């Protein structure tokens, strides 16, 4: 392992956090609005 790996790990960690944030946001939004639409459309 050379010191380039410090930079490489950081990049992959930031990439992981980016995708985790995108997925969390998508799941939260989708669940929230699906539940709200079902509730509002209920007779």
């Amino acid at each position, binding site marked *: 392992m050379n010191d*380039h790996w410090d930079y490489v790990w950081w990049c992959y960690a930031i990439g992981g956090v980016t*995708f985790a944030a995108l997925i969390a*946001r*998508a*799941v939260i*939004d989708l669940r929230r609005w699906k539940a*709200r639409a079902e*509730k509002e459309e209920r007779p």
Partner: protein
Amino acid sequence: MFAWFANPERFMRLSAWGMPLATALATILFAIGLPWALIHAPADFRQGDSVRIMYLHVPAAWWALFIYVFMGVASLMGLVWKHALADVAARAAAPIGAAYAALCLVTGSFWGATTWGTWWEWDARLTSMLVLFLIYVGYLALWAAVEDEQRAARLAALLCLGGLVNVPIVHFSVDWWNSLHQPASILRSGGSAMDASMMQPLFVMAFAFLFAFVALLFAGMRAHVYRRRALSAAMRRARAA
């Protein structure tokens, strides 16, 4: 063809299986691509292991540009043909494009620190990519700032179409100006300058990013369709009461 996709009910049926399919494909490709990029792909003879940053940086850059063009096409369809899902598609794509552009800038900065000895340089490629990210942020801010959705969609579409000028600037900046950034080594006339041992994992990662975008786009669009349904049902109720 676009009119066929613009039907919200048809889109909801299509995305109900398209979203899990794209998620599965992205997961499989990341599971193959990440160990390939981090372990099996060779180190570069000049850059050493720092070249592994490329497997995140380049797909993020490609798709940040592609997503912007996709938003431009959707914006045009929304403005001209008033397709019901066009502005929804552009709006749902924007945060993903912004995240990819930010990832490209940050990983590029790390790569620059180790290969050029500087985290940032006001060079044409880096600056035009930063401008692309700022346009994404402006587009999202516009949607958040304007309350009337139809007006917001129209203004955001105009901003998006204006910002398209920056896409060829980002792509050709390394040819038009003297740049610290290397010139195109894959998508260039005369064929790729990259060895297959690096190109293969790069394309696996690029397709992983693409399918992740498709899955996230479908999820975002479905959330917006549900949102519209919820708000119009609430309005109908309020009128009836």
